[in-house]
C-alpha cells in the first residue's frame, strides 16, 4: 500500500503546475502576474508543508523514495532559493518586457526533477530526476530566442548533456549487471560484502570501478567539474542573467546531494578508488577555474569560472571522506549558493546602456553613482574571496581544516595558494567599482531593499557561522544515522 502523503510536497508542485498552465492560457496579458504569484505561493506552501510535517516525513521507510530529514532540509533550501530566484527573474523579465509565465513553469518542472533527485533511493529514479531537470534547463537557456548566443548555448548544453546521460546510463546498466539491483541499499550491501583488499583484481571490482568512473564523470558534468566543465562558460554567457542565476545555484545543490549520497554511502566501500578520482577532479577544477577566470572580461564568464573553482573546493571537501569533511563540503555548498544568489541577483538588477550588465568594465565607477550598491557588491565579492568575518571565510576554513585534520598537507597548501590566486579576479572587480572612472550611469531595475536585506543577512551569517554549521552538522549526521 503506497502512502501518498509522503510525496505530498511533490504532489503540491505537480498539481500547482498543471493548474497554472491551464489558468495561464486564459489570463489576459495584464493579469499574467497572477500566475507568477500563484507559483510563488505554491512554492512557499510546499516549504510550509515540509516544515510542518518534518518528523512525519522522516518516518517513511521506502526503498525507492527517501523523505528523511537530510532530503527535506535540502528541499526546503532549494525551494526557498527558488523563491528568491523567481523574485529576481520576475523583476528582470518585467523590466525588459519579456515576461512569460512559461519561464517559471518550465523551471518548476526542473524543481520537480531536483526534488526527485534528492529523494531518490534508486538509480533509475535518479536518472529520471536528472533528465527532468536537464530538459527544463535546456528550454530555459534557449528562452531568449532572439539571441544567437542563447540558442547556441542551449544546443551545446543539450548535446553534451546527452553524451553525459549516455555515460550515466551505461554506468547504471553495468551496476545492474553486476549487482542485479538498482536500489541504493542493495548496491551498498553488495559492495560492502565484497572483500575489496584481498581480491582487488576480481571481475566484480574491475566492473564496479568501471561503472563508478562512468557515473562519476556524468555527475561531474552536471556539477561542472573540470575537465567536464566546457559547457559552463558558454551557457552562463549565452543565457539571460537570471537563467545564469538559476543554473549556477540550485542544480548544484541537487547534484551535491547525489554526490554525497552515492559516494559517502552507496560506494563508501570503494572509498580508496573514488577519493583519488575526486581529488583529480577537484585539483583540475580549482586550477582551471581560478586561472582562466583571470583573463575574462565578461563578468558572467568570470563568474562561470569562479563556479568551477568553487565546485573544485566542494569536491576537495568530499574527497577527504570523513564526517567533518562532508559537513565542511555541505557548508561550502550552502555558502556558495547563498553568495551566488546574491551576486547574480544583484547584477540582474543593474542596467547598463539599457541592457543587462555584461562586461566587468560596465561596472566602472559604480561607487560614485551608487555607493550603497557598490558596498553590497564589494561585500559579496569579499565573501567569495574568503575575507573574515564574511561567510566565505568560514567555508574555506572548514574545508582546509578538514584537509589538515586528515593530514593532507600538500592539498591544503594547494587550496590556500589557489585561494590567493583566485582573490585576484574578485579584487579586480572591486578595483573597477571603486577606482575606475564612471563611464555611463548604471540604472537599477528596482529598489534595493530586498538585495540590501539579503546581503546584510549574508553578513550576519558570516558573523554567526554556527547557524549554517549546525545545519550542516545536523543534516550530515542524519544522513549517516538513517
Amino acid at each position, binding site marked *: 500500500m503506497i502512502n501518498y502523503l509522503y510525496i505530498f510536497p511533490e504532489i503540491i508542485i505537480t498539481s500547482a503546475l498543471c493548474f497554472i498552465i491551464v489558468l495561464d492560457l486564459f489570463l489576459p496579458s495584464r493579469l499574467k502576474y497572477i500566475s507568477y504569484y500563484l507559483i510563488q505561493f505554491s512554492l512557499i506552501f510546499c516549504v510550509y508543508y515540509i516544515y510542518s510535517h518534518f518528523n512525519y516525513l522522516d518516518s517513511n521507510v521506502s526503498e525507492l523514495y527517501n523523505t528523511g530529514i537530510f532530503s527535506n532540509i535540502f528541499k526546503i533550501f532549494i525551494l526557498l532559493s527558488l523563491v528568491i530566484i523567481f523574485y529576481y527573474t520576475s523583476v528582470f523579465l518585467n523590466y525588459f518586457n519579456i515576461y512569460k509565465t512559461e519561464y517559471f513553469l518550465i523551471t518548476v518542472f526542473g524543481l520537480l526533477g531536483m526534488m526527485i533527485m534528492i529523494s531518490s533511493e534508486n538509480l533509475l529514479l535518479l536518472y529520471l530526476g536528472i533528465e527532468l531537470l536537464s530538459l527544463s534547463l535546456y528550454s530555459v537557456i534557449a528562452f531568449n530566442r532572439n539571441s544567437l548566443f542563447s540558442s547556441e548555448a542551449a544546443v551545446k548544453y543539450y548535446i*553534451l548533456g546527452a553524451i553525459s546521460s549516455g555515460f550515466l546510463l551505461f554506468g547504471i546498466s553495468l551496476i545492474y549487471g553486476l549487482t542485479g539491483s538498482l536500489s541504493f541499499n542493495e548496491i551498498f550491501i553488495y559492495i560492502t560484502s565484497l572483500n575489496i583488499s584481498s581480491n582487488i583484481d576480481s571481475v566484480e571490482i574491475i566492473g564496479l570501478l568501471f561503472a563508478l568512473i562512468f557515473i562519476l564523470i556524468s555527475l561531474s558534468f552536471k556539477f561542472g567539474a573540470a575537465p567536464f566543465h566546457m559547457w559552463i562558460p558558454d551557457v552562463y554567457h549565452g543565457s539571460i542573467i537570471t537563467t545564469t542565476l538559476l543554473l549556477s545555484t540550485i542544480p548544484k545543490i541537487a547534484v551535491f546531494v547525489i554526490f554525497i549520497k552515492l559516494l559517502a554511502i552507496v560506494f563508501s566501500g570503494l572509498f580508496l578508488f573514488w577519493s583519488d578520482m575526486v581529488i583529480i577532479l577537484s585539483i583540475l577544477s580549482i586550477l582551471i577555474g581560478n586561472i582562466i577566470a583571470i583573463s575574462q572580461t565578461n563578468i558572467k564568464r568570470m563568474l562561470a569560472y569562479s563556479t568551477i573553482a568553487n565546485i573544485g573546493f566542494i569536491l576537495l571537501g568530499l574527497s577527504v571522506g570523513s564526517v567533518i569533511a562532508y559537513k565542511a563540503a555541505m557548508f561550502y555548498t550552502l555558502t556558495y549558493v547563498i553568495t551566488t544568489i546574491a551576486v547574480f541577483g544583484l547584477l540582474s538588477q543593474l542596467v547598463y546602456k539599457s541592457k543587462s550588465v555584461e562586461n566587468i568594465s560596465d561596472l566602472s565607477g559604480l561607487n560614485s553613482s551608487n555607493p550603497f550598491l557598490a558596498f553590497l557588491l564589494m561585500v559579496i565579492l569579499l565573501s567569495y574571496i574568503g575575507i573574515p568575518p564574511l561567510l566565505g571565510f568560514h567555508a574555506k576554513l572548514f574545508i582546509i581544516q578538514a584537509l589538515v585534520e586528515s593530514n593532507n598537507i600538500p592539498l591544503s597548501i594547494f587550496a590556500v595558494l589557489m585561494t590567493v590566486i583566485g582573490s585576484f579576479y574578485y579584487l579586480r572587480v572591486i578595483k573597477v567599482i571603486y577606482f575606475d572612472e564612471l563611464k555611463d550611469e548604471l540604472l537599477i531595475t528596482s529598489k534595493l531593499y530586498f538585495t540590501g536585506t539579503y546581503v546584510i543577512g549574508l553578513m550576519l551569517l558570516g558573523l554567526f557561522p554556527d547557524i549554517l554549521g549546525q545545519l550542516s552538522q545536523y543534516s550530515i549526521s542524519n544522513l549517516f544515522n538513517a
Partner: protein
Amino acid sequence: MYWQSMIIIFSPLIGAIILLFKNKSTDFLSSIIANSAIGISMLLSLWLFISYVSGHNISESHLIYTWYATSGYFFEIGLLIDSLTIVMSFIVTFISFFVHMYSITYMKGDPSFKRFFIYTNFFTFSMLFIIFSNNFLQLFIGWELVGLSSYLLIGFWYNKPSAVSANLKAFVVNRVGDIGLLLGVILILITSNSLNYIDFFDKLPLLRDSTINLLGYHIELLPFIALLLFIGAAAKSAQIPLHFWLPDSMEGPTPISALIHAATMVTAGIFMVARLSPLYDLSGYVLDLILVIGVSTALFMGMVALVQNDIKRIIAYSTISQLGYMTAALGASYYSFAIYHLLTHAFFKALLFLCAGSIILKCHHEQDITKMGGLRKIMPITFITFFIAGISLMGVPSMSGFFSKDLIIDIFKYSNNTFVYYSLVLGVFITTLYTSKIFIKVFLGNNQLKIKKKLDLEHSDALIIPLLVLAIPSAFIGWSLFDGVLFNGFFDKSITDYTRLDQFYILHVEHSLSFFLHSLTSLSFIMIILGIVASYFLYYKDDGLLEKISDKFPLLRNILLNEYGFTSLSNTIIPTYFKRLANIIWMKSDVSIIDNFFVNGTANLINFISSKARLMQTGYLYHYAFTMIIGLLLFLIIFYDF
C-alpha cells in the same frame, strides 16, 4: 548588568555607523548624533558606577557570541563586568562625553567636522571594547582598534606633513608593542588552551612551574608571558623606551590629546596589567623591571618637560611622567593604587589639555608659551580651571592628584625602597616646576599677543562647560573615593592586591584625614613648596636666572633638549640608517627576488597560462565533446593498469 553594558559599548559604535552612512548631514546634526551616542553610554556608566560604589559590587562574565570554535579553541566576544571595568568605563565615557561636547566648538568650521566625530565615536567604542573584554582575543582586537583610531586622529589634519609623520611614528612604535602583546596572547593560547581571563587565571597554579624552551634556554613561562604583554603595555602607555611617539602625537587636534593621549588610550597598558594582576603577581623579576621602567619614566620624562616651550608638549611629557608613576605602582604590585592614580589623572590631565586647547584657540593657534602671557583677565574660567588641574597635578594636599600620587610615593617610603622613593619625590619637584612654568608664562605677566578681551564670555558655552565640569572631579574625586571606595574592598573581586591594601591602610594611612594632615609635613609637600618658590624665581622674576643655570650646565640642557638621545634616535638615526638598510633590502631582495621573480613572475606566469588556457574554450562543440571523451579515457587509464 548585561544589557546596560551592551548599550554602553555599542552606542558609540552605532553613532559612528550612523554618521558614516549619513551622507548629507549638517555639522550641527553630526555633533548631536555623536554627542547623544556617547551621552547614553556616559549616563549608563555613571549609573553603574554609582550603583557599584554604593555596594552592588559583583563580578560577572557573559558570553556575547562565539565567533568561531575549532578543535578545543574558542574565539569569543564576551563581557567581564566588575569594579575595575566599571571604573574604567566611567572614566572613558565621562571624559569622552565632555571632550565631544568641547569639540563642537573647537572643531567648528573644520571641513572634516563629521569625520572627526566618526573617529572619536569609533575610538570610544574601541576603548570600551577593551575594557569590557573577558578574553585576550578581544583585548587584542580592541588594542588594535584604539591604535587605529589614534593613528587616524593624530593624522586628522593630513595636509600637515608633521601630522602625517607623527601618526606614522605612533603607528610604527605601537606596532613594536603589538607584536609583544600578540606573542604573549599566542603563548597563552598554546599553553593554557584558553583565551578567557578567568580560565587562564584558574590554570595559573598549574603553569607556575612550567618553562618554555627558547633557542635552547629554558625560561620560566609566566614571567615570560608577563614580559611580552608588558611590551605591549609599555608601547601603549608610553613607557621608556617606547615612549617617544606620544609627544609627537600632539600634532592631532587638542581634544584628541585630552581624550586619547592623556586620559584613556594611553592608560590601556596600565589597565591591562591591573586586569591581569593574578599573572603579574607570579611574575617575579618582571615586576622589578616594570618598577625600574616606571620610575625612570616618571623622573626622566618629567625633566624633559622643563626644557619644552610648546604648551601641549609640556603636558604630553607630564602625561608620560605620570604614567611612569602608575607603572611604578604596578611594579610594586599595588595595582589598585595605579588604577586610582589613573582615575584622578584622567580628569585633571584631560582638563589641562582642554584648557590648553582653549588657550590655543584664543591665541590663534599659537602654542609657544614664551610668547603668551597675561591671559588671566581675558580667560578667567580657563584660568581658574587650569589652576585647579595644575595643583591637582602637582599633588597639593586635598586635591585629587595628591591622594593618588602620594599613595604611590608612600608605598616606597614604607617599603624602605629609598632610591625609588627619592626619585619619585624629586619627580614631584619637577612636576611642580613645569606646571608652574606654564601657569606663570600663560596667565601671568604681560599680554604679549595683544589679545583683546571681548565683552561676551571667553568661549561659547559648549567649550566652557566641560572645563567647569571636569574641574569638579579634578579637585574632589580623590578624597571622596578614598576611604569609602578604594580602601573599602572595591577592587576585591577584580584585583588581587586587597590583602596588601588592607595592611597598608591599617599601618600607614588610618584615615584620609590623617593621611591629609600627615602629608603636610611630608617630603613631597616640601618639594611642592620648593618647586613653587623655585619657579617664582626662575620664571616669574625675569632676571636671567634660568639662562645662567642653563649656561652652567650646557650638557644637561642639551641632553634634555634631545630627550636623552631619543629625539635623534627616532628622527635621525632610525630613519637614516634604517632607510639605508631598508633600501638595500628593498633593492636586493624585494625588487629583484620577491617582486620581479616571485610576485610579478608568478603573476606574469599565471597571466600567460591564463591567456593560453582560455583558448581551450574554442566554442566548437566537437572540441568540448572531445575533451569529455579524453577526460573519460584519462580516468580509465589512471585507474586501470591495462
